[in-house]
């Protein structure tokens, strides 16, 4: 199915398809996810949520709920001892709503009881009197000065302009359109869950949480509990996928509060429906964009107005917006720009991080434009993209110079070189045709289409945020222990970290110590950043240990440590005959080093959107081949060809898994995944109606990994998590346009958009 290269590297060092250390536990059902955790004498916690998108709380009556046998505690806003609100960027979200509820699903109270069923009955017995207000669910409306302010902080999370170059330039060719994107859900399979165990005396709490960022959780929980940081000790509970949805607090504060209130361990876990209410989603966006180009297709200027609906609370909306506006040019040269971006508060469900983080929205718009531009200039989709492809040294519309390796042209050419799939056979099996066993379509109902998408994605956090990562390496008797707070959500840092240690130190046995807050922060597992950041930290710690080992060996054997290197599993004098195994060299010594990796500093954007706000960039091209039943508007994605700028492949199978997985999520956004909202209410918070791609929706993926090591990156490798899901969505949309001749300015593309 794919060109996964199985390396023959005989040790599990960098470059080998080393196997996941948690693999055996995961395939046998023994891996402990946070939802599998138990503690003696534990109680269950559950959350009461607002049924209204916008309402005033008149009263809350807990008396009937307290009378239920087995109910141990009920807490509301007044029981929050510290800060009443939390949030990743601005702390505007109440732990519990006290006066106003601003979205359907906002927490109002939480209960602790002896059984989940008791919790359910208690929640049903809590009487909340609401004065229902008219919700504001349209972002454009919410921005108007005359509109009710949903929150004391106002209805605008952030406005950012980018003004650069000639503001009056008019191109010989002008294409413009407005594009829209629906609300996508991360839909990780392992639902939110946590276990909180109170210290005796109530002075602190030990937590086991499925999260993306232990230290940020710790900080926010401590503030709400009014406890010193060190009193909140968090260990990572097994995480069943994240994709951005675990970056914000969900049940953490509630769970800790209930544990302290009852002096009993508390387990909380969401069901699927509650999960839809309980975490942030991908921002729906509306993007107007106009391209000016020469007759030969050279982009001269971009104008755009981007509106991101952030929902009721800030979460990371401001940062998502920045990613959106700063990536609107795509991976293309452009000197002149006029961009206005708005992240807006509404009474819709809160939106925040999801894989691709603002760039997904921008990319759908700019790639749709590229195809329009190609048509206007009489060029092919490949030609228009090659003509404009960015290179290292180009200046972005923010004024930032792209210092990263930027093999945009190579991504396009190598994708273009991938063989196209065979045409749909006249006698194809039903399962190969749109509709599958539904026998919806026959081969003669099908039209095939091809489309392109290319993207640029920033790596790591931006705008002066120092999202450093910490790691500790200990070496003793040939065995390495690594310690870090880097969250494993499935991406594979648990396999990568030992590979790094083996490469640097020549050991084979590497043990990963528990992932918790007993070491410095690793930052979030997001923004395609952990291979670079935590990988850099592990690499740095291992190098410090190696230096100490060389000093030790040098002293003992009277060799200048500068002459020593690691060769396979030995310490070797590169100028002489001396050779000793690392095991022997480290026997009886204990070396312990900790390293913090910081990426280079970045700047905030100024009022004209100028500044070196991003750390680095990665690029990818996607070509989609789709079969469309044009009459019924149904789609089956047949093949995705892709060439991705990865810097360096550190683990071929893991890298391919990221690419294929990201593609499936981008496919979902293109043709099926959307949270349908009706006046602020979700109409489909279940897996019956929020559709995720199945095995029969998965296309053939042919992936080429372009290895041009990134000088800035500690291991030469760029983050690879997000790019796969970004330009695949517009590529599929373009392929459907190619098959149908329709404009399709909105994703997900619904059947009626194609055929009615």
């Amino acid at each position, binding site marked *: 199915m794919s060109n996964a290269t199985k390396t023959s590297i005989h040790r599990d060092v960098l470059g080998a398809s080393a196997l996941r250390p948690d693999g055996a536990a995961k395939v046998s059902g023994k891996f402990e996810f946070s939802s599998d955790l138990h503690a003696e004498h534990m109680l269950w916690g559950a959350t009461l949520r607002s049924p209204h998108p916008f309402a005033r709380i008149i009263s809350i009556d807990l008396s009937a709920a307290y009378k239920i046998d087995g109910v141990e505690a009920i807490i509301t806003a007044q029981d929050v001892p510290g800060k009443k609100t939390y949030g990743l960027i601005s702390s505007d979200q109440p732990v519990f709503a006290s006066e106003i509820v601003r979205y359907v699903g906002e927490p109002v109270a939480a209960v602790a009881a002896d059984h989940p069923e008791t919790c359910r009955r208690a929640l049903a017995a809590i009487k909340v009197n609401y004065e229902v207000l008219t919700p504001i669910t349209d972002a454009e409306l919410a921005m108007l000065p005359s509109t009710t302010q949903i929150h004391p902080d106002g209805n605008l999370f952030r406005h950012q302009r980018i003004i650069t170059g000639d503001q009056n330039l008019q191109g010989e060719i002008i294409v413009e359109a407005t594009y829209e994107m629906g609300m996508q859900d991360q839909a990780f399979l392992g639902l939110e869950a946590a276990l909180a165990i109170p210290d005796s005396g109530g002075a602190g709490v030990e937590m086991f949480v499925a999260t993306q960022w232990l230290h940020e959780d710790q900080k926010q929980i401590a503030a709400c509990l009014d406890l010193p940081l060190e009193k909140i000790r968090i260990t990572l509970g097994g995480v069943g996928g994240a994709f951005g949805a675990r970056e914000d607090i969900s049940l953490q504060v509630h769970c800790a509060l209930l544990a302290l209130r009852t002096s009993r361990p508390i387990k909380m876990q969401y069901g699927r429906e509650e999960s839809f209410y309980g975490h942030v989603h991908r921002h729906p966006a509306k993007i107007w964009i106009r391209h000016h180009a020469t007759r030969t297709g050279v982009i001269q200027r971009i104008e755009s107005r981007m509106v991101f609906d952030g929902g009721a609370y800030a979460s990371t909306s401001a940062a998502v917006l920045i990613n959106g506006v700063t990536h609107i040019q795509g991976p293309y040269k452009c000197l002149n720009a006029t961009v206005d971006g708005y992240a807006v508060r509404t009474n819709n469900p809160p939106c925040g991080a999801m894989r691709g983080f603002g760039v997904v929205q921008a990319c759908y718009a700019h790639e749709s434009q590229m195809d329009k531009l190609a048509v206007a200039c009489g060029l092919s989709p490949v030609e228009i993209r090659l003509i404009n492809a960015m290179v290292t040294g180009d200046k972005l519309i923010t004024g930032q110079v792209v210092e990263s390796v930027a093999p945009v042209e190579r991504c396009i050419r190598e994708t273009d070189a991938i063989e196209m799939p065979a045409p749909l056979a006249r006698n194809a099996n039903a399962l190969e045709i749109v509709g599958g066993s539904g026998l919806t379509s026959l081969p003669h109902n099908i039209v095939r289409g091809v489309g392109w998408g290319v993207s640029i994605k920033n790596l790591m956090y931006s705008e002066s945020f120092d999202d450093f990562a910490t790691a500790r390496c200990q070496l003793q008797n040939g065995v390495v222990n690594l310690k870090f707070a880097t969250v494993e959500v499935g991406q594979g840092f648990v396999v990568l970290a030992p590979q790094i240690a083996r490469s640097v130190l020549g050991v084979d046995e590497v043990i990963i110590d528990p992932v918790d807050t007993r070491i410095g922060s690793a930052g979030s597992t997001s923004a395609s950043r952990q291979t670079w950041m935590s990988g850099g930290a592990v690499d740095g710690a291992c190098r410090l240990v190696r230096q100490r080992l060389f000093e030790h060996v040098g002293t003992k054997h009277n060799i200048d440590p500068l002459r020593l290197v690691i060769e396979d599993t030995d310490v070797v004098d590169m100028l002489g005959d001396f050779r000793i195994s690392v095991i022997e060299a480290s026997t009886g010594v204990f070396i312990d080093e900790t390293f913090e990796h910081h990426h280079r500093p970045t700047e905030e954007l100024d009022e004209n959107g100028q500044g070196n706000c991003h750390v680095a960039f990665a690029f990818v091209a996607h070509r989609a081949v789709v079969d469309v039943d044009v009459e019924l508007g149904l789609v089956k994605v047949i093949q995705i060809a892709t060439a991705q700028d990865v810097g360096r492949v550190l683990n071929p199978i893991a890298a391919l898994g990221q690419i294929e997985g990201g593609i499936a999520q981008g496919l979902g956004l293109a043709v*099926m995944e959307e949270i349908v909202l009706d006046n602020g209410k979700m109409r489909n918070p279940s897996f019956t109606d929020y559709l995720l791609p*199945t095995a029969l*929706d998965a296309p053939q993926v042919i992936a080429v990994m372009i290895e041009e090591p990134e000088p800035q990156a500690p291991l030469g490798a760029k983050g690879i998590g997000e790019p796969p899901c970004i330009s695949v969505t517009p590529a599929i949309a373009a392929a459907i346009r190619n098959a149908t001749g329709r404009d399709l300015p909105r994703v997900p593309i619904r059947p009626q958009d194609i055929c009615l």
Partner: protein
Amino acid sequence: MTVLIPQSLHDALAAATANPDAQIIQGGTDLMVEVNFNHRKPTDVIALRRVDEIRNYVVTADKKNVVIGSGLPYREMEHGELAQLLPALAQAARTVGSPQIRAAGSIGGNLGTCSPAGDALPVLSALDAVINLQTATTSREISVHDFMVGVKRNARQPGELIVSATLPIINGWQGYAKVGVRNAMVISIASCCLVIDREKGSIGVALGSVGPTIIRCRETEQWLAMQIDLKNISIVAPNLLKEFGDRVAKESKPIDDHRSTAAYRRHAVATLSRRLLTRANTQ
């Protein structure tokens, strides 16, 4: 609070008659969703999973009908003799949920729940199935059209069990097709079953997910029978084919909901019915 697991139809009927309010559970694929989501709290339950008599099918001695036990899992209908005798049912069965759901779900469940999206129901409707309902002391036959009363409402009386559905073996053509937004495991947003009885020269067209219950397109059926000779395979002229679909769409009663729009559903049943009519005359 009891769970009864009768081992024979006789015991099952006795149990149901003795406790008419008991919750009947067959495969559990509908009921357990309601229980898991706290929408239903059964106390007394009669589970039919061990009643072998309803987990089977028989061809009647005259070879004119198939009597399908209400508990026969859908996976048993996808292949083999039953699929040869009732190809439309086999096709519908294969589109029910996932393999896991098809191993548990049954016609009894589709009938009991009576959702307009029940995949097997358009087939039962197009074939004029007869449903057998029994108590410990009574047995009655009711046309599937009379059985399906409305959205998730049926004619089963408390204490009655849905025992079987009798479907005729047709000399002719039958087929089923379904529209969903995903290429597998998808709830239908429109479905159609079309049956042509070449001996009688009649046609049955039934639609799913486009009304409060399954819709049988009687007027279109009669109209088509007057336009073409259904006793013989005939090429349907393009204008007739178009009108056929349009008429089918007109008989549908779809709504806008989070799964689709009424307009698309009308378009979908028009298209599906045309395709099936074409297949009937070309396959």
